[in-house]
């Protein structure tokens, strides 16, 4: 059974600081997705990572995938308040159904 572990689950940051959210998973996979969810809203797709070594960047967020280590990271650079949200990773194993992590709730404080 695929297990997906995100850490930290809660993160409080100061504006302007950098931080990384980690997504570890337990079985072989070569596809991983990152989503953002604002309170009371639906999930919005951020990144689709399709191969080992994939790196995607959008604004202050950068995601990477290391399939050998079974690890994806979501790096936040110079955080701003608008980045406050819950971030989910979702792992898709070979020929299998996706499994979501429990989410990381990020709060960026002035």
């Amino acid at each position, binding site marked *: 059974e695929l297990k997906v572990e995100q850490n930290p689950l809660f993160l409080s940051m100061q504006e302007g600081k950098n931080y990384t959210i980690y997504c570890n998973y337990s079985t072989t996979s070569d596809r991983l*997705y990152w989503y953002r969810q604002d309170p009371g809203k639906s*999930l919005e797709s951020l990144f*689709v990572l*399709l191969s080992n070594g994939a790196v995607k960047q959008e604004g202050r967020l950068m995601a990477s995938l290391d399939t050998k280590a079974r690890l994806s990271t979501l790096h936040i650079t110079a955080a701003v308040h608008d980045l406050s949200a819950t971030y*989910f990773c979702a792992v898709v194993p070979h020929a299998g159904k996706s*499994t*979501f992590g*429990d989410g990381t709730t990020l709060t960026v404080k002035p």
Partner: protein
Amino acid sequence: DAGITQSPRHKVTETGTPVTLRCHQTENHRYMYWYRQDPGHGLRLIHYSYGVKDTDKGEVSDGYSVSRSKTEDFLLTLESATSSQTSVYFCAIRLSLDGDGYTFGSGTRLTVV
């Protein structure tokens, strides 16, 4: 917007009553999914469909059934609602399995009293 709508957006129902949630898409996507979201559990897959009349169970399917008689509609039914089924339900669509991510509906907040 990817053309996916869920109805109703909110519902309060009594324990033991049947409830049907609807997911409607306008873009002819083959794959459709029902998830539930609960605090501390992220999203958990209830059922999914890979075509008309083709459905399969997810990790938390007990107490739920689904039907897909048309490409555009995927229905989730709680046969006899229980308080443990109080949750936010999300429908998602996916164009293919080759790399496309999921597009989620706005969600249905269901309260079973």
